[in-house]
């Protein structure tokens, strides 16, 4: 007997996420009233949908074993991490102000590309910070601090 081999890794990963996510969802809504088809409770639709998701996940999982496809290329961790970190840096905007924050986002994001030249990134950071501050805070008056408020004033 042949051992079971996954022939379509992308589809298999999606199936896993679908089944896992739906199982989690089922657990989360398990204490909500289900109701009847005529008077549906808050749990009716989520429960039904989670079961459908599990069904679709099962079909995908079976297919991923039966039908082969070229494996997806490996994850490019460098951009994943640098872009996530750049957005994470923006989460500090209320503390460090828009000007510093935008510069930080640009510099951290630039780490994602190997061909980055630092002189270019620094100019881009300065330019974008000024532009964003002018458009969003000065012209449109969106409520964001421009300068760091960390130290208090």
């Amino acid at each position, binding site marked *: 007997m042949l051992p079971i081999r996954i022939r379509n890794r*992308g*589809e298999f*990963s*999606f199936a896993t*996420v*679908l089944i896992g*996510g739906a199982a989690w*969802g089922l657990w*989360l*809504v398990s204490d*909500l*009233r289900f109701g*009847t*088809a*005529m008077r*549906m*409770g*808050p*749990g009716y*639709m*989520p429960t039904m*949908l989670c079961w459908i*998701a599990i069904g*679709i*996940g099962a*079909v*995908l999982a079976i297919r991923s074993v039966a039908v082969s496809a070229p494996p*997806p*290329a490996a*994850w*490019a961790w*460098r*951009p*994943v991490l640098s*872009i*996530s970190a*750049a*957005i*994470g840096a*923006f*989460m500090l*905007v209320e503390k460090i102000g828009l000007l510093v924050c935008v510069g930080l*986002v*640009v510099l951290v994001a*630039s780490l*994602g*590309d*190997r*061909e*980055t030249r630092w002189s*270019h990134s620094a100019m*881009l*950071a300065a330019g*974008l910070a000024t532009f*964003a501050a002018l458009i*969003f805070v000065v012209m*449109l*008056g*969106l*409520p964001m601090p421009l300068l760091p408020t960390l130290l208090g004033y």
Partner: protein
Amino acid sequence: MLDAFAPIFGGLSVALEPANLLYCFIGAMIGTLIGVLPGIGPIATVAMLLPVTFYLSPVSALIMLAGIYYGAQYGGSTTAILVNLPGENSSVVTCLDGYQLARQGRAGPALAVAALASLFAGVCATLVIALFAPPLAEMALLFGPAEYFSLMVLGLVAAIVLAQGSLVSALGMIVLGLILSMVGTDVNTGALRMTLGIPELNDGIGFVPLAMGLFAIGDIIRNLENPEARSVMTGKIGQLWPTRDDFKRCIPAVMRGTSLGSILGLLPGGGAMLSSFAAYTLEKRISDDPSRFGRGAIEGVAAPESANNAGAQTSFIPLLTLGIPANPVIALMAGAMMIHGIQPGPQVMTNNPDLFWGLIASMLVGNAMLVVINLPLIGLWVSLLKVPYRLFYPAILVFCCIGVYTLNNSIFEVGLLILFGVVGYAFLKWGCEPAPLLLAFVLGPLMEENLRRAMLLSRGDPSTFITRPISLGLLLAAFGLLLLIVLPAFKRTRAQAFQEQP
């Protein structure tokens, strides 16, 4: 018949006010810009600009956002023809013949045909909206919850058509989108569902961080994966004006593309992309010599480009008459309307006629502007394509962050942006298209609401969906569309078009 167009003139007086003219122009410019640039589309752009619309009048806001959507259809064809990359998803099929034409030294006529076809389609689609929106709004009054539900089922099936990858994966994405839309407070009972005890989730997952994460952030990460390989046509674009033979071939193709696009735009789930696909398939089918397609057939540019513009515009009809957003971009515009306290639906036409007709008339103005923006200024857009990606993705990122944050002043939603960005990248890796998920997320709450009401009215009997004639018709249409997807000829175009994508 002429009476039907009379309100457009009233609308024109709104659209021609200097402020609205300015916002129409800004929208058309931004639309062309993001259309030309691959890696950023109308979904992310409209989402970014949503907070800005707080500060505009509702008419100006919608005129600008609409301009971005149909402007992107113009810009997208430029990149498709010159670089063989779809600047916009709806120009995927334009690459097939457009790039071949460019290689044969006929980039000029291809660009001109794309712009003129779009203009013709844009004007026609505007008249279609003026003609059909009022009766449709009246018909909406006949719609009960069962009909609404079936209509949305049809929309979700249509979304599968434009999904890359397998049918089952697309179904999975739809169900996932529906489940995500259930997060938050249940409107009927007030019960909290799947909020994990996080108070920020009581109002549900934010649409903007979800849309931006899946589309903008996921795309940025994927684009950074590979070193840039973009070869802009360096040769001369050549003479712009098409030959007489081109015109002879294109005129019927544009007519068919426009009609098809106008009809498919009406579908929830329809819009620019579905229309361009269907138009290309149709042209190839009825052509005397199908082998010309893919080798530089000018009809292969004219038909999809007219169809995507027509589809983009008529996809406003479901929102303005039924209150159903047909696709994620339109859903964001519904958001813009609600920011100003206007509930999308059949009552917009009677309660806010200036808004309704002003928006429609602005499309005439905008399309005229777009031809000018695109053809004479083509050199500007070509030079823009030479700006390396590494200088422009940090800018996209900054504007995404600012857009998400300022919408609700919520740091939490910026955090969600990271999560959905990584998820979006994973989906791309696994060959799952995120568009169906997003549409399902938009329609989810409406579907649940109408399903609950329909079942309550029918006392729990599901046959209500097939005993009511309009509902039955919609479900049969959904079934027919599913059959169409598995049809070999259509399947081949779909596969071929997606193969061209990098």
